[in-house]
Structure formats: structure tokens, C-alpha cells
């Protein structure tokens, strides 16, 4: 039972002054599942991500990843343990090429960053791996393009590529379809499902598009005003009266 849980959060709170962005949140994320974290704007989703991945220190509570206490670890150490994230706003290396975006992450994972004088070109294995990742994301043709010139949807894929390249055990995606057209959204959903099937990586996704959530998530967590309102299977959440009342309203029927 314990072995199934990859990320365990206990009594997590985060306050900014008097304001509690998170209040006593306890959840478990199971290995090999896609878990969705939903909640209205300002429910504390991004804060939840930031506290877990080491951007903020929690006010109280513990975060355990794969049996290791990672509470208050700095971001780069959390990433090293295999817990990676993407960002709500496109957060890539704009002036670098697409390939370099992926390579940066690979360099970090393979701990080649302190190789000071050997040219990047001579790391054939890294470049092949970068190529494989770009191929998987359907971006291979854009490898030498400067990232800022990509289409919006492609940029979001680069974002996921950066996370993938650090060989994560678990990826936390923060609104991967934010600002996308319906076509782009569909492409992204398919991509996430494809990645999940191919790699078996555990996913935690925040998402505002309920269609997306209910089509891909195995389990759903609902945040409301910093508190965990409910958790369960999509069916359970759909039928949960509190969730319906507090947040979902009638939208699920539409």
C-alpha cells in the first residue's frame, strides 16, 4: 500500500502574512497515475506547486517524495530527486534553440554541467537523447530554431520537454493548456496521454478545462480557498455534492 504512494503531503500550510494560501492540506499521489488538481482561480494550486517543488518554504507541514522528506529542500535538489514541474506561464529559454532547451535539462540530469572546456558538440549521447525527446514531442523539425520564434503550442511542448529531459519520476504540470486554442488543447491532451503510456511517469496536472480533467485523470483533488475540499475518482468528484456546490456549479452537466 505504502509503496504505491510516490508523493505524500501532510498538513501542508503556507501563509503570506495573515493570508493563508494553503491550509492544512494532506494528500497522497499514487505512483503510475495521472492525478488532477482542480480548483477555482486563487484556490492555491500554484502555491501548492511552489511549496512542494522548493520555491517557497511551507509554514507548516511535511512533503515526502518516494519516502524521502523533501520539505523545504531547495528547488534544484527536489528536481534532482526526480520531481519536476512545468509552469503556468511559458517558462522556457527563449533566446536559445529548441535543442538547447532540452540539452540544458539533460546536462543537468547527467551532471555534465561542470564540464568547463569540452565542447557541447562532442557529447553525442546527449544530443541523441535530446533528439529522441524532441521526436517524441513532434518537435524534431524545429530543433535548431530559436525558441522564442515557435508557435505558442509548441512552446508549451518545449516546456514539457525540459521537464521530461530531467528523467523525472513524477511531473507536475501547471495548466499545460492555458491560453490554447481547442486544437492545441486536444493535441496537448493526446501528448500527455501518449507520454504517460510510453514512459509510465506519474503526472500531477492542474487544469481548468473540466473536459480535459475528466478525460485523462485517474484521480482528482479539489482545492478550495487553500483547503482540500475533496479527493477521489472522477466519478466520485462528479457526484460529490460539496464540490458541485462550492465550485463546479452546473458546468458539469453542460
Amino acid at each position: 500500500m505504502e509503496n504505491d504512494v510516490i508523493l505524500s503531503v501532510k498538513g501542508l500550510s503556507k501563509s503570506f502574512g495573515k493570508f493563508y494560501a494553503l491550509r492544512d492540506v494532506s494528500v497522497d499521489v499514487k505512483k503510475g497515475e495521472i492525478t488532477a488538481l482542480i480548483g477555482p482561480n486563487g484556490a492555491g494550486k500554484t502555491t501548492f506547486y511552489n511549496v512542494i517543488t522548493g520555491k517557497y518554504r511551507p509554514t507548516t507541514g511535511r512533503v515526502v517524495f518516494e519516502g524521502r522528506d523533501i520539505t523545504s529542500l531547495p528547488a534544484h535538489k527536489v528536481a534532482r530527486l526526480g520531481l519536476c514541474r512545468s509552469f503556468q506561464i511559458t517558462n522556457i529559454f527563449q533566446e536559445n534553440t529548441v535543442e538547447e532547451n532540452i540539452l540544458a535539462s539533460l546536462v543537468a540530469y547527467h551532471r555534465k554541467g561542470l564540464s568547463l572546456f569540452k565542447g557541447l558538440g562532442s557529447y553525442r549521447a546527449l544530443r541523441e537523447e535530446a533528439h529522441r525527446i524532441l521526436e517524441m514531442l513532434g518537435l524534431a523539425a524545429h530543433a535548431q530554431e530559436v525558441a522564442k520564434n515557435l508557435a505558442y503550442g509548441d512552446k508549451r511542448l518545449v516546456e514539457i520537454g525540459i521537464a521530461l529531459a530531467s528523467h523525472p519520476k513524477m511531473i507536475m504540470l501547471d495548466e499545460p493548456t492555458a491560453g490554447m486554442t481547442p486544437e492545441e488543447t486536444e493535441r496537448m491532451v493526446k501528448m500527455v496521454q501518449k507520454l504517460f503510456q510510453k514512459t509510465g511517469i506519474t503526472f500531477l496536472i492542474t487544469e481548468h478545462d473540466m473536459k480535459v480533467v475528466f478525460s485523462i485523470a485517474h484521480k482528482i483533488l479539489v482545492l478550495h480557498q487553500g483547503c482540500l475540499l475533496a479527493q477521489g475518482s472522477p466519478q466520485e468528484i462528479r457526484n460529490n455534492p460539496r464540490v458541485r456546490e462550492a465550485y463546479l456549479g452546473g458546468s458539469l452537466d453542460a
Partner: protein
Amino acid sequence: MEKGKSLKLAALLAGALFLFIFPHFAGVFAVLLLTEILIFALFALSFNLLFGYTGLLSFGHAAFFGLGGYAMAFMVQHFHLSMLPALAISTIVAALGAAIIGFFSIRRDEIYFAMLTLGFGMMIFTLVHQWRSLTGGSDGITGFEVPVLDLLVKKLSLFSPWAYYYFSLVVCLLGAILLWRLTLSPFGLILRSMRENPERVSFVGIDIKLYRWIAFTAAGLMAGVAGALFALYDRMASPSMVHWTMSAKPVLMAILGGPRVFLGPALGALIFYLLEHFITQYTQSWMIFLGAILVPIVIFFPQGVLGTLIAWAQRLIRREGHGE
């Protein structure tokens, strides 16, 4: 690709060759001027490792230039060391200084980083300015001669401007090549990624403080080499080497030439000195002209002169390519 590579190599070799045969056609003054340009090109390149490649605007880079210069002057004046050991010690002194100052400075970003480096730089300035028994105060250390270059099999005098030009050329080329390799390495990629987005870099598992610290120390080390060369070129180490106005020079050069192109700052150094050289021939108030030239360059050449030229050239080439 292969063709492009060989073209680049050929161009670089041609450039190096040009620098090597240049003194045979030029007068003493041109040789001296070019020596100074080379030294400042190295200084600006070292600064740009932080600015153009890591995204950190240091406003105290002259501290390490000065540390290198003072260490060199001190070693030559008091211990009469020969060139290579003196240069090695100066480099180490500058690198140590950079490691210590960098340890604190890299904890802050952007304008705060600039201000911290300014603060530390001016503390070093005060140190050399006030510690008269060690540094000669505001007069600096003067009156020493260029040490001999002891190559074990042969001792070479670097007294003549030509000899010193060649020595500086070799050292500056080596320094530039090292910096260039650094930017092409995985380390360089991480630096460039940090320039774009330091937060993202930490989320792929990189300790950005460590990388910034290494970059800061490396940049300070190379600035120390340039400073040591400059102290010998000038036959003096003076507080002006450490002052913030000296720190402003590589900033100016990098932005003039183009911080996103490796050789941009070197070109910036060249432009800076040639401008100064030509303008001061006609008028004593060269600052007003420098300002008048600086302003349009900043407005109309957002990627620096070299960066903008390259962008134009690329557009031209692309257009030709479409025509075919």
C-alpha cells in the same frame, strides 16, 4: 555544415595571422594602441561571460582587473619575479578576490547584483587608495620595469613595445580561446540558460548559485590576467584601475559591440579606442562626442554593432537564399 565550419576556422586563422603580422607594417604608436585594445578586449570578454552569457550586470569588474594589476606590480617591484610566475600569482590573487566577492554578490539579482558588485569594487578601491604603505596610495605603484619572460631555455626581454605586443597577443588570444571554449561547453549552455531564465534552471536540478559563483570567479580570473598585462603596459598600478569608472568600460564595450556575440565585446573595445583616438585628435572634449555617438548606438543598435551587423547579414543571406 562542414563547409561552414572550415570557413569559420579559416576566418579565425586569418584574423590571428593579421594580428601577428600587423606590427610589421605599423608604427610604435599603433602597436602600443593595439596592445591596449587587446588587453581591454580580454577584459571586456571576461566581463561578458557574466553579462552576455550569465545575465549578470557586474558594476565592479574592475576590482579584479585592479587586483591582478596590483599583484603584478607588487611582485615585480618588490620580488623581481620573472614574467610567468608573476602572471600566475596575479591571476590567482584576482581569482581569489573574485571567489570571495562573488560568494556574496551572486546571492542577489539584477540591479541589486550590480549595486553589490559596485559596493565591493569600491571597497577594494578604498583599500588600495588608503593602504599607502602597501599600494602607494593614490599614486599607485610605479617605476618598475617589465620582467623578463623566462622560458627556461631562453630568457626574453619584453622591454620593446613590439615584444610586449606579441606577449600580450599570445596571452590575450589564449585567454579568449579559453573563455570561448567555456561558452561552448555544457557549462556555457547552463550559463546561457540561466541568463534566459534562472528559475527554470533551478527546476531542472541546477544549483544556480554554484554556477554563478564559478562564472564569477572565472570572469574575475580572466580580468586579473588582463589587469596584470595592463599594469605592465602602463608601468604602474594605480587606483584608477579599480575605480567604478573602470568598471563602466567593459559594460560600455560589451553593449557597443554586442553582448550576445562572443567577439562582440572585443569589437566594442576596438570601436571605443578608435573613437577615442580619432576624436581626441580634433578636440579635447571627447566625452561629448562619445556621448553623442553612444546615444544613437544604444537606440538604433539594440544588439550592439556586431550583433546588429550579423542580423542584417543573416537577413540578406536569407533573402538571397529565397531568390534561388
